[in-house]
């Protein structure tokens, strides 16, 4: 049990409260709208975050341990692939992008490669049939495949 993690979180909350509060001072309107104006809700949010953050700095409880290097590496892989997915989805389309990221995720979770590829292809195919074909959700086809000959 370390209280350092709590202090860091508390300080982060205080910084956020300050940023929100300062930004809210600039929400002014030239003409009269209502007595409270657009700044009231952000001020309230900043106050709550600030008070909570201060309390965590002053009286820290036990925060949980930091993830190990192996776990941190896995998290970085998952984060990077989520960002890459959002980036590449319009280009490669739902089917290809989703199969790719799911195989990566499944491998990160320690899944056997061949079985995860087979299961993933079946699963993503089912999802596409269910959501795009049956329910009519629009899922990107991928601009790469639209430019054909």
């Amino acid at each position, binding site marked *: 049990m370390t209280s350092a993690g709590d202090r860091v979180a508390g300080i982060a909350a205080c910084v956020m409260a300050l940023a929100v509060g300062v*930004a*809210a001072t600039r929400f002014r309107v030239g003409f009269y709208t209502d007595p*409270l104006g657009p700044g009231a809700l952000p001020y309230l949010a900043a106050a*709550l975050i600030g008070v909570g953050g*201060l309390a*965590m700095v002053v009286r820290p409880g036990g925060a949980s341990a930091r993830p190990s290097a192996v776990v941190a590496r896995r998290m970085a892989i998952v984060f990077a692939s989520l960002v890459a997915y959002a980036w590449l989805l319009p280009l490669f389309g739902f089917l290809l992008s989703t199969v790719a990221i799911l195989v990566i995720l499944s491998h990160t979770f320690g899944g056997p490669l061949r079985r995860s590829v087979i299961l993933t292809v079946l699963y993503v195919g089912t999802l596409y049939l269910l959501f795009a074909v049956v329910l009519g*959700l629009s*899922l990107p086809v991928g601009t790469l495949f639209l430019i054909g000959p």
Partner: protein
Amino acid sequence: MSLLLDGFLVALQPLNLVLVLSGVSLGTVVGMLPGIGPINAIAILLPVVFAAGLPAAPALILLVGIYYGSQYGNSISTILLNVPGTASAVVTAIDGYEMTKQGRAGPALAISAIASFVGGTLSIFGLVLFAPLLATWAIRFGPVEYFALMLFAFAALAGVAGRSRPRALIAVGVGLFLASVGIDPNSAVPRFTFGQLELLDGMDFVVVTIGLFAVSEVFLELEKSGVGQAVTATLDSVRVTAREVVATAWTMLRASVVGFLVGVLPGAGGTIASFLAYSTEQRLVDKDDTFGTGDIRGVAAPEAANNAAATGAMIPLLTLGVPGSGTTAVLLGALLSLGVTPGPLLIQNSPEVFWGLAASMYVGNVFLLLLNLPLVRVFVRILEVPRWFLFPAVTALSFVAVYAVNQSTFDLFLMTIFGVLGYGLRKTDIPLAPIILGLVLGPLMERNVRRALLLSDGAWSVLFSSPIAITFWVLTLVSVATPAFLWLWRRRREPGDCVTATEGGV
């Protein structure tokens, strides 16, 4: 009564029967799987039902089915594996897992299903009885009363947070901050949009919820090793003797009443209901000190209570539009996006929604009893799905749902960011439910207080101008101040007495 019969005409339509069956089955599954709760399931399904063009009543029958169905499911993993699907089943683990260790997993699962059914069905009587009454009373609510009521909802949620109240405050604050993102509808001032066009409409609660709950869960699961849950318990027969059911009958009835009453209160919910019912029964019927050693009543009490609480929580949600928990906050978001405005006029204006939903809950509970008694073996098999398939599969569903909201990849980035944020918050024990409550309730609260002050020409005294509003203010003060007073008092009386402190916190 004729209104409820009309409701059954809605609920018994073939499509709605299919939807309620899908809802409760899905609820059982997500309630059972640790790490995938009803919040994820409802948030993921909402854009889907929206895109599929389901009308409000069938859509709600499905989504609410997930909500109460999950209360049945969470006891399965609790009893068999000692891994509660959600916090409201933690108490069930005490006697439930003990029974499994003694080789009585079958009777434990059976009594849990029966108690859930008793709690679930009895509380629907409460719902159809009290919701219309509360609605007639709440019809007098204006902006002033609503503002005070919403403050009370937040205060109640922070009040039950116990030792981690600073964390609950931060969570509510973050939720309100997220609620203020976008163009302010009153003054057209853009708030915290960082020049992003996509943020002008504000944060979509589906994107935030899926990020905070589903994606952060994937990060959290990376810390664990192992392939999946190995169910080692032997399930010979999932049934109880008539004598055992009779012996628990009063326990189930009392626990249902306790659960229902606690459920109606904002902030409390299933977790507190099950704790309270368990400790009440312990005091009343535990004469031989068998609670905690695999007593069947110790399974029946919390299961009846948390199911009754789930239904009880529907009352303030539907008649006041004020949710008291994370899951009901997501349901409020669902109601609003389906074009149903919850509040005192809901029962009058959309009777098919309210009565159809209530009737479908009876049907759903019958389905759940059938599913959880003979078919429980099938569900248990789902627990054996390997984690390397389960969590990627949930991620893919999250992609589909988040993309369906606006057909924008920006939302996928946002979801990822909220996933990381949710992970950080969970690691520092900051609760996520108040964030969703703040995000969904924040805009309503702001609109009401600004409307009230606009009407009064800026006179703040208007906020204390009605007896109902004053009552809510007092309740708010009480729920904020009581824990602090109790703490001071206890510190003076019995320094360092932790046992009393935890009991009082329950």
